[in-house]
C-alpha cells in the first residue's frame, strides 16, 4: 500500500481536470461564457464610444444689434447673431429658433434640453461695457438639469460659443433650471435609474429562481396530472410574484425616498404605479425565460444577459443621445430605458400621466407581449 501524502499536487490537478471537464460538457454554460462577455463588451464599446450629440435646444435671439456712432464710419454690431451662428455650427447641439416662452414649454415637456434667450440690448450692452461703463450683458439659459452629462454638454457648447465671439469674460450666463428650479445633485439624478436597475435585478432573479425551483423539485409530474392547467399555474405564479414585486418596489422606494431623501416632484401614486407595472413586466419576462432554464444555475445565468445590456442601453450610465443612431433605435426596445424615463419623469421633472402616456403604454405593451410569450411557451406536460 502506497504512503498517503499530506499534500498532493496530482490530487489538486485531478480536481481541476474534473471541474473543467464538467464545464466543458455543459454547452449552455460554455455558450454563455463566450456570448455574455462578447455581447456586453460590444454594447459598451458602441455606446461608450461617442460624446453627446445633437441635443435639441431652442434659441430666442432678440438682439436688435447696435449701431456704433461714428458718422460715415458707423458700423452695426450683431453679437447675438455671432453666438447663434457659433451654436449652429456646433454638432453637440441641434438649434431650433423660436420664442423663449415656447422654448421653456418645450424643455418642460421634454422636447428640448435647453432654451437660450439673447436679450434685445445684448450688443448695445456689450459695446457700452467695452467703453468702460459698468454694465453686464447676460444670456439666459433655461436648462433641463436632470441629466448631468447633458447639462454639462449644453453649458460647454454655450460657453464655447460665447468664447468664440468675445474671448474670455464679458458675458454673464444666467442659468435657470427647469422642473421647479431645482439644481439636482448627482444622487438625485441617479436614484430613478437605480430604482429601475434594482427593480429589474431583484424581480428577475427572485422570479426566475422561484419558477425554476418548481420545475426542478419533481412536483411538476404531480401538477401535470392534476386539474391545474398551465395557464392557471402561470397566473397563480404571476400573482404571487406580483405581490413580492410590490413589496420589493416598496422597499426600494422607501430606501430611496426616506433614507437618501430622493426628490419626487410628481405624484407618488404615479411613481408607484409605474414601478409596479415595470415589476410586472419583469415577472412575465422571468416566466418566459424560465421555460428555457433546466436548473437554478442556468436561470441565474440568464439574469446578467438581460441586466447588463439593459444597463448599457437604458441611458443610466451614458446618455442615450450620445449613442450612434442605430444604437439609439435599439434602446427603444429596452424596457429599462422606458422605465428610467418614467421614473426620472415623475421624480425629477414632476410629470403627470399626460407627459408619461407613451412610457406607460410602451411598458404596458411590453408587459402584455412577455405575458403572451410566457403563455405560448409555458409547459403543460413533461418534455418529449
Amino acid at each position: 500500500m502506497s504512503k498517503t501524502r499530506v499534500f498532493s499536487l496530482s490530487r489538486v490537478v485531478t480536481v481541476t481536470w474534473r471541474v473543467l471537464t464538467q464545464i466543458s460538457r455543459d454547452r449552455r454554460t460554455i455558450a454563455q461564457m463566450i456570448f455574455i462577455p462578447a455581447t456586453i463588451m460590444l454594447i459598451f464599446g458602441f455606446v461608450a464610444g461617442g460624446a453627446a450629440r445633437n441635443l435639441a435646444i431652442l434659441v430666442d435671439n432678440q438682439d436688435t444689434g447696435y449701431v456704433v456712432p461714428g458718422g460715415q464710419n458707423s458700423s452695426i454690431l450683431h453679437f447675438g447673431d455671432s453666438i447663434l451662428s457659433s451654436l449652429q455650427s456646433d454638432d453637440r447641439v441641434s438649434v431650433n429658433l423660436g420664442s423663449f416662452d415656447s422654448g421653456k414649454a418645450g424643455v418642460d415637456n421634454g422636447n428640448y434640453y435647453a432654451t437660450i434667450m439673447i436679450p434685445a440690448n445684448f450688443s448695445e450692452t456689450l459695446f457700452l461695457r467695452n467703453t468702460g461703463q459698468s454694465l453686464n450683458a447676460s444670456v439666459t439659459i433655461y436648462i433641463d438639469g436632470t441629466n448631468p452629462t447633458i447639462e454639462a454638454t449644453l453649458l460647454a457648447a454655450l460657453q464655447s460659443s460665447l468664447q468664440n465671439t468675445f474671448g474670455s469674460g464679458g458675458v454673464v450666463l444666467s442659468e435657470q433650471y427647469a422642473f421647479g428650479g431645482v439644481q439636482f445633485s448627482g444622487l438625485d439624478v441617479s436614484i430613478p435609474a437605480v430604482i429601475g436597475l434594482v427593480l429589474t435585478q431583484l424581480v428577475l432573479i427572485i422570479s426566475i429562481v422561484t419558477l425554476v425551483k418548481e420545475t426542478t423539485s419533481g412536483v411538476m409530474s404531480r401538477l401535470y396530472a392534476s386539474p391545474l392547467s398551465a395557464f392557471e399555474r402561470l397566473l397563480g405564479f404571476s400573482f404571487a410574484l406580483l405581490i413580492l414585486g410590490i413589496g420589493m418596489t416598496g422597499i426600494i422606494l422607501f430606501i430611496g425616498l426616506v433614507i437618501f431623501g430622493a426628490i419626487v416632484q410628481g405624484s407618488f401614486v404615479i411613481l408607484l404605479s409605474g414601478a409596479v407595472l415595470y415589476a410586472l413586466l419583469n415577472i412575465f419576462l422571468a416566466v418566459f425565460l424560465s421555460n428555457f432554464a433546466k436548473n437554478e444555475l442556468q436561470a441565474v445565468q440568464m439574469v446578467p444577459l438581460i441586466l447588463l445590456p439593459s444597463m448599457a442601453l437604458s441611458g443610466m450610465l451614458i446618455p442615450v443621445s450620445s449613442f450612434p443612431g442605430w444604437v439609439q433605435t435599439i434602446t427603444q426596445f429596452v424596457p429599462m430605458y422606458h422605465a428610467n424615463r418614467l421614473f426620472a419623469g415623475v421624480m425629477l421633472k414632476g410629470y403627470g400621466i399626460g407627459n408619461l402616456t407613451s412610457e406607460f403604454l410602451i411598458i404596458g405593451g411590453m408587459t402584455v407581449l412577455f405575458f403572451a410569450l410566457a403563455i405560448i411557451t409555458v409547459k403543460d406536460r413533461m418534455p418529449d
Partner: protein
Amino acid sequence: MKSLSSGGKSLAHPFKYGKETVIETSNLVKVYKEGAIRAVDGLNLRIVKGEIYALIGANGSGKTTTINMLTGSLFPTSGQIHVLGRRIPNKRRIVSNRIGVAPQEYALYNDLTVEQNIRFFAKLYSMDRGSIQKRLDELLSILRLNERRKTTITNLSGGMKRRVSIACALIHQPDIAFFDEATVGIDPVLRAFFWDYFRSLAEAGLTVVLTSHVMDEAERANRIGLMRAGKLVEEGTPEEIKQRNSVSSIEQVFIKLSEGVVADE
C-alpha cells in the same frame, strides 16, 4: 411509538376478474426525442376496477414512462390510452379529478409543512374546506402523520415523505391511484403497512397501479405486468406467472425471461 405493523395479515388476496375496465392501452409507444430512446414499445394493458396491478421491471424498463403516459403527464408517440373511459391525453384534465399520483421522487414542497402540502393539492381538486379537513384528519391518522402535521417536509425522514406523498395522491378520494416506486427504499415494516393499506383501498373500490423494481414485493399485487425494454413480457397473477415459468419466485421469472442479458445494456 405507534406501530405500523399490519398485524401479520396473509399475502393471499382473492380477486375476481371481469369487472369494469378502468385503464386500457393499445400498442402504446413512447420514443424520447433526446437519444431517440424507445422507452415503451407496443404496450397493451388492461386494468380493471379495484385491482392492485404492479408494473415491475428493472430500472429503465419503461415503468415510469408508462405511468406518466397513463396520468397524462407525458404524451405518447403512438398508440391509444383510455382511462376511466376517456381518451388520454385528450381528456386528461377531466380524468385528472379522478386519479391520484405519487411520483417516484417525493414531489412535495420542501418549505411547506405536511398539512400545507396536502391542503395545497386538495385545493387543486376544488375540494371544499370541510371535506379537506375531514379527509386530511383521516389520512394523517391512517398514515401515522398526525404528530408531524406541522413539520416542514425538509425535516422529515424518507419514509415519512413517502407517506405524505401518498396522502397528497389520495386526498381527493380518486378512483385510481398511481404509485411509482412508492415502496422502494423504505423500512420493511412501513412497506408491509403500505401493502395492507393499498389492499384496504382496493377493497373499497380504488384501483391501485404501482411500479416496483423489487420483484418479490410485487407478489403482493393481484396482477403483475413484467416489463423489459419497454415491452410487457409477462402478465398475470403472481401464481399464474410462476406456474407458467415453472419457478418459485417472480425474481426467477425475471431472470429466466432475461436470458442472462442485462436489460439496460
